[in-house]
């Protein structure tokens, strides 16, 4: 790798890496909504504030409760594509890490099933009548479940990189060799999920505040808007904090990397992405700071934050692959993708992708026009 990732690589490998990174970003976008959203819900349930307000006057919590099951469904569905392409790119590493973790890895599925159903329970109207400890327990269980899944993925990923440790890990049945990289990496993703969730949530709040029909009848229109502004400020604070923690933990993680790996990040393959990532974080911080000071919605800044966040995620995903490729057998990965490229079916995928994207657009259009019925 001597040029900007993924362009310095063989074209077939570059192609699969691009497809993988793009599909991964879509998955991550939805996944962060679920991860940070569940943490937000747990917090909002445990600490409702001095002014204990009815559920309908917590717009963000209401939105999250309503949309989390769909977001999880979307995250799982979106996760299928990167899960497919990781098997083309890093088959041996991915499979071996799965096998070394064994039942600990397989626990991801039942935990997700439980969390999924609990999200539906939290969404139900009956839950507001339940006692405070039960509600707290529910919300915390969901957040802990998603944190566990994040922990498993991080462990799996780090284990897949450390090929030399595999035999010993198999013998000892341990899952983690080095605790610090795991903690820093996990913290980077968890903290980074808050600003991303805040973007989706902010757009949802923006859409919701425009519809007066959502307003609680007992609250005046002015107070109603003030509630939204308060939520917006909270989101901005959480996002800035999340970005800060993510950057610090990311730097700590970088320190744990071997020098040859770190040099790839600061060299030709990684430097442009590093700069894009830094710029993305800077723009997001500025955008949220602006929100915080102005204390109202500004679609222009929200658009800037969204674009910056997408840039940051693509940069983070690219840097992640640079780290992985630096530790993989590049010849094997290149030959593997070259052979995969000889397998037919890509035209079928392109044709149906176009058709199905159009059909998804049509579905959304039908739903958006529903008020005219």
């Amino acid at each position, binding site marked *: 790798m001597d040029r900007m990732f993924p362009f310095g690589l063989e074209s077939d490998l570059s192609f699969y890496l691009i497809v993988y990174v793009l599909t991964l970003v879509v998955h991550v976008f939805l996944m962060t909504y679920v991860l940070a959203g569940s943490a937000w819900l747990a917090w909002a349930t445990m600490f409702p504030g001095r002014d204990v307000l009815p559920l309908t006057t917590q717009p963000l919590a209401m939105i999250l409760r309503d949309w989390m099951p769909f977001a999880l469904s979307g995250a799982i569905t979106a996760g299928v594509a990167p899960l*497919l392409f990781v098997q083309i790119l890093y088959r*041996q590493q991915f499979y*071996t890490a799965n096998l070394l973790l064994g039942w600990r890895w397989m626990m991801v599925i039942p935990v997700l099933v439980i969390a999924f159903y609990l999200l539906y329970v939290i969404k139900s109207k009956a839950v507001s009548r339940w006692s405070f400890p039960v509600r707290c327990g529910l919300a915390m269980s969901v957040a802990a479940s998603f944190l566990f899944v994040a922990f498993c993925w991080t462990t799996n990923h780090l284990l897949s990189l450390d090929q030399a440790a595999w*035999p010993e890990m198999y013998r000892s049945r341990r899952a983690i060799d080095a605790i610090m990289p795991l903690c820093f990496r996990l913290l980077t993703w968890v903290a980074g999920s808050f600003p991303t969730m805040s973007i989706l949530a902010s757009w949802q709040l923006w859409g919701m505040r425009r519809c007066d029909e959502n307003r609680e009848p007992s609250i005046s229109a002015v107070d109603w808007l003030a509630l939204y502004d308060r939520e917006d400020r909270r989101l901005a604070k959480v996002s800035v904090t999340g970005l800060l923690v993510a950057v610090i933990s990311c730097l700590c993680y970088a320190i744990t990397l071997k020098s040859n790996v770190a040099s790839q990040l600061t060299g030709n393959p990684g430097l442009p992405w590093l700069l894009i990532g830094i710029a993305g974080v800077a723009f997001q911080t500025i955008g949220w700071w602006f929100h915080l000071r102005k204390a109202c919605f500004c679609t222009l800044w929200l658009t800037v934050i969204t674009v910056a966040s997408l840039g940051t995620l693509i940069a983070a995903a690219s840097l992640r692959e640079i780290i992985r490729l630096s530790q993989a057998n590049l010849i094997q990965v290149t030959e593997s993708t070259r*052979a995969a490229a000889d397998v*037919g*079916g890509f035209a079928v995928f392109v044709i149906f992708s176009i058709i199905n994207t159009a059909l*998804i657009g049509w*579905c959304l259009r039908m739903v958006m026009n529903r008020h005219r*019925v």
Partner: protein
Amino acid sequence: MSILNTIVARVLHSGNRRIPQVAETGMVYSHQGEVYRCFDAPLAAHTFDGVFRDAMSPIYPVNDYGPLMPGLVMAAVAILHVFLAQFAVGGGILLCYFQWLAMTGRSQNARTFVHGYFKVLVLISFVLGALTGVGIWFTSIQISAATIGEMVFNFHWIWATEWTFFCLEVVSGYCFYRYHRQLSDRTCLTLLTLYAVAAWMSLFWINGILSWQLTPGDWLMTHSVMDGFFNPGFWPSLLFRTIVCMTLSALIGCIVVNIIPNLERADRQELINKAAHLMMPMLAMPILGAWYLYSMPDDSRGWVLGGSPAMMLFFMISVGASLAIGGYALIGLWFQKLYINGATATLLLLLAFGATAGGEFVREGSRKPYTVRYVLFSNAIRPEEVATLRAHGSVTDDPFPVIHETQLPNETVTVGAKVFRRQCAVCHTMEGSNAVAHLTESWDADQMRMNIAKLQQTKPFMPPFAGSAGELESLVQYIQWVHQRRPETWDKTIDPQAIEHIQKWLDEAGTVAAGFIPQRIQSTAHPQADVRSTVGSFQ
């Protein structure tokens, strides 16, 4: 720019896989004491990690599931997922039908049913169905990473295409779920139709990949993804599964009808009779089942139809349960002689689960000794690797130690444990289910040596032993050590005469599986070949 070129080239050339030149491959088989080099058979083109290689497939760590054989773990997840996924596919068709009934005024309560049924569909299929789908992928990796790797490698664009339908399924489904009360009937029907088509198309795509495992057909020669996808088992399997989907959805529909509140018995009866319409295609099941059996390889069909008692038993369970459901549907629901209450519907659904489980067991089992016919044995060893492993040893390069190695008495037994793990553990345990220790209990050492050396002849659904004579002897000693309740010391040494016998038996048995009969042909392309060329004759 080169990436752009790659994309354009890939779209324009939807492409068959490149068949490698002879110099790249050169696969050696031995059969009945004679050595063959396979120049023309595409089996020689096998890849691992896409590399036409000199090296062997990598060795993955193997997990021990205690008394459960890994196949059972796989079966549990697979059967649950297949059941739920088929419910989702059939559910889409059923909902479209009921929406149409409601719109055309043919059923007063159809709309109530649609709303109630979709909730069940979302809560069961969207959650459990989707997650067990991911779960089956993870489980496949746990049980046979090489098999799932082979499937993903050869059909990743087909799988990616299926994924686009998953996306459509989720979006159209949730759009209906969230907004159906605010949408016109026509829009609801459109969304449900999109959902049903997307769900059925996901069956369409995965069916091609799954049926390829047993009947790869012309793919073996061409390596064309379309030849592999539209394989001999594709259409009978697809049509059969579609009927199963419709039947399951109708049975669950009967349960839903019984739990919808505020309905009179006559209303329930009417809805149940309408749901039963989706069970009528069951009449075609015998024909489709026969077609599917006909598409199977001779040996696989033979096992299902009596060659293997276990497979025959599960086949009969599947047929019997289907007959019971079909009979009830025909007499009770179509001719309206019987009412079906919630308990009966649940019982019929359990029967359907039994039929699904039996059918899936037969489908999985009939592939033996392969997981992908002629491509990959059940133990993740490739047919073309057997000869090399016989010479080189199957665990020589195994980097993973035996867990609790210190509890094993000596190096020979340790090697035996490794051989067991590499070659047997995917289908057998040592002392749990399908236990090797029990299966070989009555064999003396020489019987054991010969039966394992000639494994594919001892049991035609077993793959050939793929290790050296020394490894086979180590395996025999490991089994004997277990037979003797794992003593702390084990003084037996490897007898050179035993090794000689084992080698003789291994040579006699050859390296090909029971169903693969090489045919001698003259290789016109490579007349300089110093051994006979062959193509495989696939039974």
